[in-house]
C-alpha cells in the first residue's frame, strides 16, 4: 500500500456497517485532506449519517479501519473521537431541552472543573458568539429556543471545544437561507483557522460554493469521488439518484375554484400578550397554492398553527368551506379535511417508537377501510395501505414494521409527508416540505403538492426557498413582523420584489 501523502488528514478504509435488514455502509473508503471541505452527498438513506457517526464514535464499524495523519486509530466512544479533535453536528439536535444553553455547551467536557465557573463560561460563550456572530443568550433554556437558535448552540458547542475536524450533518437543513449563509460564513472562518470539514448537504449551491471535493454515496457504496470544480449540479444529482433529475414541476394551468379557506383579521398573541400575528386576512381558493415567504420568525409558524388549531386567535375569523373554524380543536379540523406538515417534525409529526406502517395510518385508523365500524383495526389492511404508500413515496425502510426512529433523517420526513399528503381532504398546510430531502425526493414532493392542487385542494405552502415558491406556488404572500406585506402573482413576480417585501415593504395587493 502506498504511503499516505502529507496532506491526508483522515482516511477511512473499507468501512462496513450493518443494521438489521440493511447494509448502511458497504466497504466505503473516504479521504479528507488538511484544510479542505469534503461534501458528502447521497440520497436519503444512502448511509451518510451512519458513516459520520462512526467517525464520531457513536457507532462501531463491523469492518474497516480509520487512520489519522497516517496512524491507525481506534474510535470506541465519542470520548475517543473528541480526543482526536473530531467534532460533529448531528442531523438531529443533540441538546438537553431542560438545560440552559451554557449547560449544554459545557456538558461532558473533560477538563471542566468540579464546580463549573458559570460566569466565566458564559463570558467565553458570549465572546465566541460575538466572534462568529452566533447570537444566543447563554441563560435561556433550550426548549425556549427556535430551531435556528438551537442550531447556533450546536455550532457553539463545536467551537467551544475547539474541534479540528468538523463533521456537519445537514446543518443548514433546518435553517433559513439567511441563517444558512451566516453558517456558511462561519464555516469559512473556521477553515481559515486551519480546520477541515466534512459537510453533508442536499443543497447543490452549498456544495458548489464551498466544498473542494465531493464524494457521493448510493445505497451504502461510494459511487463517485472527485474535485468539486468541473462538476455541475445536474451531474451530481444524477450520480446521487442514478437517474435523470429534471428540476422541473409538472403543473396544470392555474384555474382557481370557489374560495376554500378564508382568514379575516386574524390576530394571535404570545403568552406575554404581544401580538405575533397582526390582523391577517387572506383567501385560498380551491385548486390554488398560496406560498408564504418571509424570514423565519416573522409569524409563519403562528399563521400555520392558528389555521390548524394549535394556537388560539384572540380576534378575527377563520372559515373553511364557509363554516366557522376559529379556534376549533385540531381533530375537528382534521375531520374537516385539513392536513398539516409541521415545521417541527420531530416533536409534532412522528412517533419514533411506532412502526412506519402505524405512523402512516395514524390519520386513517379511525375510519373504514383501515378500521371496522366498531373501531377494530385490520392488520392486513394497514400493511396493504402502508406498502402502497412506501412504494409510492419511495420511503427507504427495510420493512413496514420497522420502527420509524431507525429510518434515515430524510426518510422520516418522507413518512410524514406521505401521511399528510395522502390524507389531504381539501386543505393542505405544508411548512418547509422539502427540508432534509434529497433532490429526487424534493422533486417528487413538489410534484405531489401540485397534484393535490390539481385535484382542487387549497394549499398553503410556507417555504424559505424563493425558488421553490416561484416554481410551485400560484400566489405568494410575504410576511414581515407578523403582518402580511401583500400577495403577489407567482407568475409575474421576481426575487427582487419578494426580497423587498421580506424586508418590510408593502407590495402587491395587500
Amino acid at each position, binding site marked *: 500500500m502506498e504511503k499516505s501523502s502529507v496532506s491526508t488528514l483522515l482516511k477511512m478504509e473499507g468501512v462496513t456497517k450493518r*443494521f438489521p435488514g440493511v447494509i448502511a455502509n458497504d466497504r466505503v473508503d473516504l479521504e479528507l485532506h488538511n484544510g479542505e471541505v469534503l461534501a458528502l452527498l447521497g440520497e436519503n438513506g444512502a448511509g451518510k449519517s451512519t458513516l459520520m457517526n462512526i467517525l*464520531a464514535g*457513536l*457507532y462501531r464499524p463491523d469492518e474497516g479501519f480509520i487512520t489519522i495523519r497516517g496512524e491507525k486509530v481506534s474510535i470506541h*466512544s*465519542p*470520548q475517543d473521537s*473528541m480526543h482526536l479533535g473530531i467534532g*460533529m453536528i*448531528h442531523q438531529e439536535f*443533540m*441538546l*438537553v*431541552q*431542560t*438545560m440552559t444553553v451554557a*449547560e449544554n455547551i*459545557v*456538558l*461532558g*467536557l*473533560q477538563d*471542566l*472543573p*468540579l*464546580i*463549573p465557573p458559570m460566569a466565566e463560561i458564559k463570558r467565553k460563550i458570549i465572546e465566541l458568539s460575538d466572534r462568529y456572530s452566533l447570537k444566543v443568550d447563554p441563560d435561556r*433554556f433550550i*426548549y425556549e429556543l427556535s430551531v435556528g437558535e438551537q442550531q447556533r448552540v450546536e455550532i457553539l458547542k463545536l467551537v467551544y471545544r475547539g474541534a479540528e475536524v468538523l463533521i456537519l450533518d445537514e446543518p443548514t437543513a433546518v435553517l433559513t437561507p439567511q441563517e444558512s449563509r451566516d453558517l456558511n460564513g462561519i464555516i469559512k472562518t473556521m477553515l481559515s483557522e486551519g480546520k477541515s470539514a466534512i459537510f453533508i448537504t442536499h443543497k447543490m449551491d452549498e456544495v458548489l460554493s464551498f466544498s473542494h471535493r465531493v464524494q457521493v454515496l448510493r445505497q451504502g457504496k461510494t459511487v463517485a469521488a472527485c474535485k468539486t470544480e468541473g462538476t455541475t449540479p445536474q451531474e451530481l444529482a444524477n450520480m446521487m439518484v442514478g437517474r435523470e433529475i429534471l428540476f422541473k414541476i409538472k403543473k396544470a394551468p392555474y384555474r382557481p375554484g370557489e374560495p376554500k379557506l378564508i382568514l379575516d383579521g386574524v390576530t394571535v398573541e404570545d403568552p406575554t400578550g404581544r401580538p405575533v400575528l397582526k390582523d391577517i386576512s387572506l383567501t385560498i381558493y380551491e385548486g390554488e397554492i398560496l406560498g408564504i415567504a418571509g424570514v423565519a420568525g416573522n409569524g409563519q409558524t403562528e399563521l400555520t398553527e392558528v389555521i390548524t388549531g394549535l394556537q388560539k386567535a384572540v380576534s378575527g375569523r377563520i372559515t373553511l368551506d364557509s363554516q366557522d373554524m376559529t379556534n376549533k380543536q385540531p381533530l375537528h379540523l382534521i375531520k374537516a379535511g385539513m392536513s398539516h406538515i409541521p415545521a417541527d417534525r420531530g416533536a409534532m409529526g412522528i412517533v*419514533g417508537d411506532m412502526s412506519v406502517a402505524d405512523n402512516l395510518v395514524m390519520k386513517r385508523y379511525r375510519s373504514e377501510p383501515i378500521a371496522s365500524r366498531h373501531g377494530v383495526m385490520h392488520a392486513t389492511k394497514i400493511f396493504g395501505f402502508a406498502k402502497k404508500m412506501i412504494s409510492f413515496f419511495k420511503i427507504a425502510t427495510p420493512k413496514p414494521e420497522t420502527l420509524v*426512529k*431507525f429510518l434515515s433523517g430524510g426518510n422520516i420526513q418522507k413518512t410524514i409527508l406521505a401521511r399528510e399528503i395522502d390524507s389531504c381532504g381539501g386543505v393542505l398546510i405544508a411548512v418547509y416540505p422539502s427540508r432534509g430531502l434529497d433532490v429526487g425526493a424534493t422533486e417528487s414532493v413538489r410534484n405531489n403538492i401540485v397534484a393535490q392542487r390539481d385535484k382542487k385542494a387549497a394549499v398553503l405552502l410556507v417555504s424559505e426557498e424563493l425558488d421553490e415558491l416561484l416554481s410551485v406556488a400560484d400566489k405568494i404572500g410575504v410576511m414581515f413582523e407578523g403582518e402580511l406585506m401583500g400577495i403577489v402573482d407567482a407568475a409575474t413576480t421576481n426575487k427582487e420584489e419578494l426580497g423587498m417585501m421580506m424586508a418590510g415593504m408593502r407590495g402587491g395587493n395587500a
Partner: protein
Amino acid sequence: MQLITTLLAVTLSAGTSLLYATIGEIYTERSGILNLGVEGMMMMGALSAFAVSFYTGSLFLSLIVAMLVGGSLALLHAFLSISMRANQVVSGLSITLFGTGLASYLGQRLGPESNGFNLAGMTASNFQKIQIPFLGDIPILAAFFNQDVLTYMLFLIVPLSWYFMYRTKHGLSLRSVGENPRTASAMGISVAKVRYLYTVIGGMLVGLGGAHLTLAYTPGWSENVTGGRGWIVIALVIFAGWNPSRAVFGAVLFGGINAIQFRLQAAGTMIPASFLNMAPYVVTVVVLALMTIIGKKKKGKYSSPSALGNAFSIEDK
C-alpha cells in the same frame, strides 16, 4: 408551645427515613433508572442495621452494612435494567418482593437461640437524641436541635445534594443522562457508568433510611417496620419534582401527619385506630396529587426525567 415543639420534633424524626430514601431514589431516577425496589431495600437496610447493632453494638458498622446491603440490591437492579435491559418496573418489583421476603425470613433466623432465633422483641444499641447546647433550648427551634445523628446529617445531605445536582459537573452529567441519554452519550458521557453509579448510591441512601427506622425512630426489629414507606417514597419523588430540596416538604408532611396521628391515638379519640393509621398515607397521596396537578402548569421544571424507565443503547436510538 411545648406541644408544637414536641410534634415538630417527632415529625422530623418520622420524616428522616423517608427523606434518606427519597433523596436516594431521586439520584437513581435522575439517571433515568426507575427503581421500584425501594420498599425491599429499605426493609433489608432496616434488618441488617439492627442485626449488626445487636451483635456488635457498633452503630457505625451498622450503618455501613445497611448501606452495603441497600447498595447491593440496587446493583442487582442496575445489572438487570442496564446490562440485561430488563423491564425496570418488573425488576424493581422483584427487588421489593425479594427484599421484604428475605428480611422477614432473616428476622426469624438471625435472632438469639433464647428468643427462638427471632430478632423481633430484641433490643440493641441505638441512636440517641443529642441536644445541641443553647439552640436546643429555644422553643420551636429546639425541635430541630434535639435529634439523632442521622437526622442531623440530613441538614447537610439535602443542601449538598441540591448543590451537587444543579451546580456541579457531575450533576450536569447525571441530569443529562436521565433527560436525553443519546445526547449525553454523544457528548462523551458514559451513560451506563453514570446509571450504575447513581443507582447504587441511591440504594445506599435507601439502606440508610431503613437503618434509621430500626436504630432510631422505632428502635427494634419488627416484620412490618417500614410500613409501606418505600411506596410513599416513590410518590414523594414525583411530588418533589426530582428536586432534593423539595423532597423535604413531602417527608415533613408525611412525618407530621404520622406524628399527630400517634398523638391522637395515644390520647384516645373516637376515631377508629385503623383510620388514624391510614391517615398519613391518604393525606400524603391526596396532597401530592393536588400539588402535581397544580405543578403541571409550570412547564419543564418539575417534570420527570424524559428518559426515565427506558433502556438505552446508542444504536437503538
